[in-house]
């Protein structure tokens, strides 16, 4: 039963995930923590941290949430739920979309989505900082990461993550 709920909750989310799984963080939090109480705030941020550090696409945060909620089948249900519906739509849509490329309504959607996508990413980051209950040390890491990432585009995020993990391990954030 929970598998079916999990699949359909995530399937519904996939249609509003403008900007990919990252953009979904706010809604994932609302559904899994606030609404269903499948996870608490701490676990949610932990799963986010693991997905973020693991190799592979961002959608893996869904796999982890599914695992915590309902084990292996939960992980599969959540991942499929998030990936399958839009894959099917895109499969059917891609040729038609290319035919209309450059038309005014298509440009309008493209322009219109962008500011909302920014809002989604910002909301996700904000929610994580709230759920993780960051103290000054963690906030300092957030600030330094923003600075370094914007200033040195060539610096691979993995280095920053490794540094963050080590500071956490050593300093007790």
């Amino acid at each position: 039963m929970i598998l079916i709920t999990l699949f359909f909750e995530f399937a519904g989310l996939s249609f509003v995930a403008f900007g990919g799984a990252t953009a979904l963080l706010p809604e994932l939090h609302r559904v899994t923590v606030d609404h269903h109480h499948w996870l608490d705030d701490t676990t949610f941020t932990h799963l986010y941290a693991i997905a973020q550090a693991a190799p592979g696409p961002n959608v893996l945060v869904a796999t982890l949430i599914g695992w915590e909620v309902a084990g292996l089948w939960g992980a599969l249900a959540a991942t499929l739920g998030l990936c399958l519906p839009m894959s099917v739509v895109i499969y059917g849509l891609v040729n038609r979309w290319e035919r209309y490329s450059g038309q005014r309504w298509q440009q309008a959607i493209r322009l219109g989505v962008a500011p909302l996508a920014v809002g989604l990413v910002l909301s996700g980051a904000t929610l994580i900082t709230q759920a993780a209950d960051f103290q000054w040390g963690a906030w300092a890491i957030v600030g330094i990461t923003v600075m370094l990432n914007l200033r040195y585009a060539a610096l691979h995020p993995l280095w920053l993550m490794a540094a963050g993990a080590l500071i956490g391990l050593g300093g007790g954030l």
Partner: protein
Amino acid sequence: MTAEEFNAQLGLCQFLPGPNVVNLAVIVGKRYQGWRGALVAPLGLLTGPVLIVLVLARLYDHYGALPQVQSLLRGLAAVGCGLLFAMAWRMARAIPQKRVFWPFTVFTVSALALLRWPMPGVMAAGLLVSSGVAYWMLGRK
């Protein structure tokens, strides 16, 4: 596939909802091998990472309660947030007509992060108005 074609497809995937890379794999797979490719490409892309993340999940179940692990994950989450804020900033800078479109960003953040409204409604309303404005502006030029 040429770089231009790839960029065009990636653009489509980034802007459509759903996991970007999975969508991209579907498109590339379909293009070269029809429905079989569209099925196999995302599976190939996801299988390895899913296995890895499941191993990590088991480790987390065993050791997640340790204070050192919690602190380590907090450090990772902090870096993750920093990366997200930086990404949002870069995306926001790339938006044309900032005075017209940035308010929609403010609307989205207020509705989702502060008021915690459900995302589907917020996105549907935001997209309708924001694309409508864009449509009108495109017609004026």
